[in-house]
């Protein structure tokens, strides 16, 4: 009896610790890999913001009378966004003021939902750069 090799398996605690260590490593690994995705998303958001700013600046410079109707708009940078699209909504805030909402939306390659950047401004029928 005393010479029989004492065969024992792993205890539950040992197995749990091993699984936890492997799990933590996998989570860290995934976190490192997903940062480049975050960087790409941040870059696209920056581009979208620049497109929206550019559109608003153009509308502001054109002045109240030249404001277009609601609809989509074009920008040379839109093609650099994955499925990028721009739309603007022009509505009457009061008799002499219009509210402009510029939306730039796009979709990251591995995401289901669209992302978007929305800028809003008011343009009155006095002022403007022209």
């Amino acid at each position, binding site marked *: 009896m005393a010479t029989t090799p004492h065969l024992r398996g792993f205890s539950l605690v040992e197995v749990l610790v091993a699984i936890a260590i492997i799990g933590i490593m996998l989570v860290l690994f995934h976190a490192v890999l997903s*940062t480049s995705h975050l960087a790409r998303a*941040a*870059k696209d958001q*920056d581009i979208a913001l*620049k497109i929206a700013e*550019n559109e608003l600046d153009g509308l502001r*410079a054109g002045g109240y009378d030249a404001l277009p109707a609601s609809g989509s708009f074009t920008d040379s940078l839109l093609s650099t966004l994955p499925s990028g699209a721009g739309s603007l909504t022009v509505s009457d805030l009061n008799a002499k003021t219009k509210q402009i909402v510029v939306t730039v939306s796009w979709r990251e390659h591995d995401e289901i939902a669209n992302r978007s950047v929305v800028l809003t401004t008011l343009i009155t029928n006095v002022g403007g750069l022209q």
Partner: protein
Amino acid sequence: MSRRGFTLVEVVILIGLIGLILTVLSSLFLIFNRTAKVQDALVSTAGSAGSIVNGIQAVVHPADQVLVSHAFATGTYASGTSTLVAQIPSIDSSGNVVASKEDYAVIYQTGTSVYRRIEADAASSRQTGTKLLGINSSSLTFTYDQVDFSQVASVTVDIGTQAAVKQQTFTSHLRERIYLRNR
């Protein structure tokens, strides 16, 4: 008490396990390293393009005129497709315009770096100095809405940045039409 060493099988398995772990760890290290470099290139191209456009906006928005050329302490710069010289009304510490005083600013590229130099009037609250707006610039182009610089009302900035990681090249491109709001 029988003292026994390792069997051959145990030693072989041990060596195999150590080899496997070393391979996995070293490949993880290489992947991390590469991911960090790729991310650095992505951030620096996108970030540079953004900060260059922002820096140019900060000059053009308050400007009252684009100048043909101006003599700065560091040399004379002339407006063109790659250089922009602007005249900006001086402001005091509360942001009010100082009558008939002007500050001068130039945006220019040296190598792949884009700089902004501002020379402020003594009465202005702006600081005289040169600032690095961004690096990795591969193309910086200014397009003006008028041929005559004194008539220019808006400047279109087109900036491309790029950085290479091994064989991969990361690029970023921004284009913005900026209006002279004090014209």
